[in-house]
């Protein structure tokens, strides 16, 4: 339950900085904030991070269009699955292949 709430806060934060116009938020500053958020997510407990990743998929379904796409891609953008699989080289290789195929 807490994971869902935190995921919603993070999703709002990401949507704002990703979709805000350059005249409203300096794009370089926006990137800095996203990097800060990403480093913060990396330090979370792995179990909680797993719950967050799963929650982003649920929250994305509550939205549509560009916002939905941004929220759904949060784990991808911040390499969260890779962070969860840090001790599993097989899973990391698989994620690399998925990322490469997607690119």
């Amino acid at each position, binding site marked *: 339950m807490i994971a869902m709430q935190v995921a919603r806060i993070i999703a709002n934060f*990401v949507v704002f*900085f*990703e979709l805000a116009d350059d005249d409203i938020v*300096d*794009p*370089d*500053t*926006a*990137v*800095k*904030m*996203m*990097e*800060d958020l*990403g*480093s913060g997510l*990396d330090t979370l407990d792995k179990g909680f991070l797993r719950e967050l990743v799963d929650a982003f998929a649920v929250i994305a379904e509550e939205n549509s269009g560009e916002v939905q796409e*941004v929220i759904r*891609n949060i784990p*991808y*953008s*911040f*390499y969260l699955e890779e962070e969860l699989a840090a001790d599993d080289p097989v899973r990391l290789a698989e994620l690399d292949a998925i*990322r*490469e195929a997607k*690119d």
Partner: protein
Amino acid sequence: MDEIQGQMGRRAFVGWLRTGRSPAGRIDRVELKFNPWHDPDDGRFTFAGTGRRFGTGGADPADQISGRASGIFGRPSIGDRNRPRIPATPKVQAPRAQQRVGNDAGVIDRRPAIVPLKVVPGLRLVNQSNPVTEFVGGAGRELRDLANETVTGVRSALTTNPVTTVRNAALGIAGMIDAGIAADDVPARVQISRAADALANASARDIGRAGAYVVGNAALTLAPGAALSKVSALRGLRKARLRPTYDPPEIGWAKETLDRDKPWAAYNDAAPGAQAGQAPTLKRKLPNGLERAVKFDGVQGDYVIDRKWKIVDAPHARAQLLRQSEVLRRHNVIGTWEVPDQKQRMKALMLFKKMNVTNIKVRVVKP
């Protein structure tokens, strides 16, 4: 006079390069070019002064004795086919394969017997100067000297500089290679012309040396297995060109109002040339003609540095990468991303590849 002789020298050398024939009128027409020095064990050519010298007439003395002119197995050599042969007279007794006696009878001993050379009256002495021999000898010596100098130079650049660093060594070697390749850039005819002019009264050996210098420069850059070729490969055997110099980029500074207590903020502030609360910027021209600053974190010489605490592969981050790449290209500078660990570096490299960005490098700088 000098000019005439220079032209003769050029013509002679060009003719030799094209046909293999020596300058007309300077030697007899029995042989075109040859190396009289052979290894007596296997019959292969050797450098002058090593192995054994089998006469100056060019043909194998053994063949001459048997009435054959130059050529293999009694056939005339390619260069001789269209010309009448001049009967060769015996010149020197050469060692022949011997039939063994005793238990090994019937087995041909291909090792030459140590037989002192016999000089036949009326013939040239084996040590007598021959223009063709001198020419080939000069060419060989020049090639050898050039190779020696290059190897010595490479070794010197790597070992004798008291403040030798990888960069210095690379620069030293690159300089030598550039010189070699630059020499190769000069058309051979020009180099030969210069050499012939300078050596108006030069012997065939001197002309050979001049020609070999050109050939040697080209050959050394391609010599497989040599240290030189490895270094050349690193440079992709590029032609020696001066890198154009540009004015240093016009760096502006923009105020940054981010939380300075965060670990990533401290990391960014530690970038070379960074100023706390200020971000170095480069101006980027927008399609509508306006200019907008692109922020970085530090400046080091002509390099602008952006420190990334965490790589993010999101639309804004990708757009920032493209902005930086574009502004760097516009200002003719190279950017560097500094990341805290190897994991982030790999992510950055993947992102560069994905976005086709080639003018930004990435390196690990520990916090």
